[in-house]
């Protein structure tokens, strides 16, 4: 006689996509976390501006000249946003979404990393040059790489 567990296993012919999707979320957790935070900020601002200027996702899409579907993906926090897109949203909603901190602690960590930064031609992953340059910001001076 079969046990309930065996009967359930027999009935469950399909496997959920959860594990596959969860692993993908885990692999991309650094940028998706930022995307999520940005989405929350956008959603709250749309809600804030709903009464004052009738802001909606659709209106934002129109102002950005993108599809409403794209904006919906953005506000779900699942879009790998470009700086161009972020800047457009910032301008339209009149808010700040990202800022680059220039504090001493983060500079200190990066100094050694950037000391001999190499430029790699991405198309064939061939090392074509290696250089560094000095950048002065207030009392800090550090070397970093550039690709133009």
């Amino acid at each position: 006689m079969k046990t309930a567990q065996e009967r359930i296993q027999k009935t469950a012919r399909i496997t959920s996509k959860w594990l596959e999707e969860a692993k993908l979320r885990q692999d991309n957790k650094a940028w998706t976390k930022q995307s999520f935070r940005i989405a929350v900020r956008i959603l709250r601002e749309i809600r804030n501006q709903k009464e004052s200027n009738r802001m909606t996702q659709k209106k934002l899409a129109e102002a950005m000249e993108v599809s409403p579907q794209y904006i919906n993906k953005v506000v779900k926090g699942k879009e790998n946003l470009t700086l161009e897109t972020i800047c457009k949203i910032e301008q339209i909603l009149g808010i700040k979404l990202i800022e680059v901190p220039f504090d001493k602690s983060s500079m200190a960590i990066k100094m050694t990393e950037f000391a001999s930064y190499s430029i790699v031609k991405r198309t064939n992953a061939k090392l074509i040059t290696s250089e560094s340059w000095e950048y002065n910001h207030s009392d800090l001076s550090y070397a970093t790489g550039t690709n133009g």
Partner: protein
Amino acid sequence: MDIVSIFGKNLFSIKYPGESKDEFNRIFNSWQDAEYLEEFFENNKEDINNGFWNNISVEDAILETYQCARELESKLIELSKKSEQEQLLGLDSIFKLLHDSQSQIFTLDRSKAKLTWLRIYALRVDKNTFIVTGGAIKLTQKMQDREHTNKELQNLETCRNFLIEQGIVDVEGIIEEFEI
């Protein structure tokens, strides 16, 4: 209504008719969907502003939910890599009896996985098999207090009946439980 496998031999989920995802997958997607969470906490603002949740803001509630969902999901991914025995032990430690006062394991228990206000509801069959019936963000003391959590109670009953009707579990030994 279908039963789908999540991973291993001990964890399953219900997929309701008309739904594109099974419940387990649906809740983890919802809990990491900024739009869904913003609307949910905006609609349930009073429940997070009543002192019990330290008057947390809607923004913080969304971020807290997202963080907790990620932690729970990571824990479950790790569990999926383990042996069958370890998976069962892990599931046993995650899922708790729906009625905290109960201590005995019944043939068909209503169980819940708990992390802050996140809840995953499941039926436990023969002590070793969990069938997820749904999940919710539970902000109030009783499940009956809010429509979305009350619906989960109904789902547990619907799924329990489904399992009996399909002959998957025996009627004998099933203990009826009710939320107080």
